């Protein structure tokens, strides 16, 4: 019995070694993508997944002379699951890069795995400023909330808005948005009358909106995770804040392209700041949107463009390293400059953070559909969270 046992163990060990060796020699590199495909943030996952498929369809499955295999896993937006999946992808599948990450906690939970295994981790969605500081292997292709918040603060100060009330969802990105908006706005001579926060799961905005109305500011600055925007704007209109002379300014999450059309007329005229609009007038974006809409039944939003550019960064880096991973791949990701559907972007070599133009947009009806139409721009915005 013991002997047979030993034999079996040996056999298994041999098998394991065999496959291990086979893997090392293979001409395939694997990219592990972890996204919330189910649960609350499923629309993020859906958008990024579609964008990744589009990238592979357009650019083939070869990079750096090797075959690229993309493995997509669903973490349902639960940080523990993200971490476990990342571990499996790194240990079992030997992926050269991790990518995806729909929410801040998911990226933060996985950061130590990237550091320990020296695997580059490309954040395609999560937007809290501090994420890239959690590991030297994190590269971001989405945006940071301070980038958006600071840009709209600049615009507001220049456009006769003196007194503002801020309203943010009470979690990491919300706190970022509140802090950076208020700092920049006060620096430019404005005043913040009140800083309000709503619980992430508190969908009735009646009390906070009443508070805003009683404070009677020139404008209300809002950040809410995409999905709550429609609800919010309806109640904003219902409560008669616009009639009371209070303007609504926001980060682009509130007027997310994915849901903008369903929001209806209440969204019209909302001024907001973001890095990507499906209506961005450039040939690169036209091509991207056309191809995306042809392959899917929905419009690409800022999540999709983060996923698309994330794939580009990984492919470009693999081409440079001839398919090698680890430190070399990370270094090849740093400093990339390219023309994204959103406009020209740069991966800052020092902070591994994306540097991009932030557009000021207004919701308008174009050909019967609602779009964020860009009318002003802040060029080459670095993440203000890292300018100290």
């Amino acid at each position, binding site marked *: 019995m013991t002997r047979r046992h030993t034999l079996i163990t040996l056999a298994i060990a041999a098998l394991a070694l065999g496959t291990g060796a086979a893997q090392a020699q293979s001409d395939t590199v694997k990219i592990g993508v972890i996204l919330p495909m189910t649960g609350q943030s499923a629309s993020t996952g859906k958008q990024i997944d579609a964008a990744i498929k589009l990238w592979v369809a357009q650019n083939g499955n070869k990079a750096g002379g090797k075959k690229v295999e993309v493995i997509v896993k669903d973490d349902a937006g639960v940080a523990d699951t993200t971490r476990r999946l990342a571990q499996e992808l790194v240990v079992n599948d030997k992926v050269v890069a991790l990518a995806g990450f729909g929410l801040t906690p998911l990226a933060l939970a996985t950061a130590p795995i990237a550091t320990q295994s020296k695997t580059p981790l490309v954040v395609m969605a999560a937007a809290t400023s501090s994420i890239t500081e959690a590991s030297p292997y994190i590269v971001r292709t989405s945006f940071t909330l301070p980038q958006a918040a600071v840009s709209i603060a600049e615009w507001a100060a220049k456009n006769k808005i003196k007194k503002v009330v801020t309203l943010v969802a009470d979690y990491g990105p919300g706190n970022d948005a509140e802090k950076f908006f208020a700092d920049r706005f006060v620096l430019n001579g404005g005043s913040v009358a009140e800083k309000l926060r709503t619980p992430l799961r508190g969908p009735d905005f009646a009390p906070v909106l009443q508070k805003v109305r009683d404070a009677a500011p020139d404008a209300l600055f809002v950040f809410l995770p995409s*999905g709550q925007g429609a609800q919010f704007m309806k109640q904003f209109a219902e409560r*008669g804040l616009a009639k009371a002379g209070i303007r609504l300014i926001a980060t682009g999450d509130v007027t997310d392209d994915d849901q903008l059309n369903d929001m209806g007329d209440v969204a019209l005229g909302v001024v907001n700041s973001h890095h990507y609009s499906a209506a961005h007038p450039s040939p690169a974006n036209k091509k991207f949107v056309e191809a995306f809409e042809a392959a899917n039944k929905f419009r690409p939003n800022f999540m999709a463009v983060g996923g698309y550019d994330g794939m580009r960064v990984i492919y470009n880096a693999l081409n440079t390293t001839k398919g090698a991973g680890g430190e070399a791949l990370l270094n090849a990701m740093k400093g990339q400059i390219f023309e994204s559907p959103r406009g020209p972007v740069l991966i800052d070599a020092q902070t591994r953070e994306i540097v991009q133009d932030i557009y000021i947009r207004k919701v308008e009806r174009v050909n019967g559909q609602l779009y964020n139409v860009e009318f002003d721009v802040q060029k080459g915005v670095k993440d203000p969270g890292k300018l100290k």
Partner: protein
Amino acid sequence: MLTLLFDGIAYGMLLFVLALGLAVTMGLMNFINLAHGAFAMAGGYILVLMMQKAGWPFLACLPVAFAGTALLGAVLERTIYRPMYGKPHLDQVLFSIGLTFMAVAAVDYAMGSSQQNVQLPEWLRQRFEFGSGPWMLGMGAYRLFIVVSCVALALGLQAILSRTRFGSRLRAAVDDPRVAAGLGLPVDRIFLLTFAVGSGLAGLGGALGADILGVEPTFPLKFMVYFLIVCAVGGTSSITGPLVAALVLGIADVMGKYYAPKLGAFIVYVLMIAILLWRPQGLFTREAGK
């Protein structure tokens, strides 16, 4: 100030209609149905689908949402709930929470996880304002509509329960099903009807509240706590109990978020703890309780 009070009442009324069905099944039928929120969600989705896909007007969708979920409730009662009546409470809880998770996953799969939008008709989007300064009263037409319809519902139900033959039969069937059956009352059918109406009310609440509470797959889990608080605080033996509890909670929630935004959503729980310490059986339960 008055505006806030009004908002609180509207919110409370909504909670009341949503939780009423649960109070009925829990108090009258002695069955703990944690899947109650799933029926509310079903009502919300029926409303959204009818309005978006079939283009029905808002008002016409409300009765459909009621009837649709009532029918769903009746079918489920007949097929899977009935065998659970005799089971211990823990089994009932496990069973119905399982149902809730299934409903969440099923809706997520079928409809997607994102928030559904409801376009209210123009006349519900108006706003009435009276007075000025701190005593200004601003009322959204939609919230006013909720308050009015919920008051009508509460009065109607109270009348049915206390004045009609069906009401007395139901109370008899609940007090002692065996004796009631011995006297020739069709206990099964009474329970079936009650369960269906309870589910229908939840559906109506989900549809009515679609614009304020939102319609999305995690709805049953998100609001389950609120329903249970209403039942725990109000007691489940009458309609007045949950009504008062829902109003108190609604007003406290809105006021709390206005005056103490830092505490925010927590006020409701503090209030529940305080009330339950004071009256562990709930506000309006008969002294002995169950």
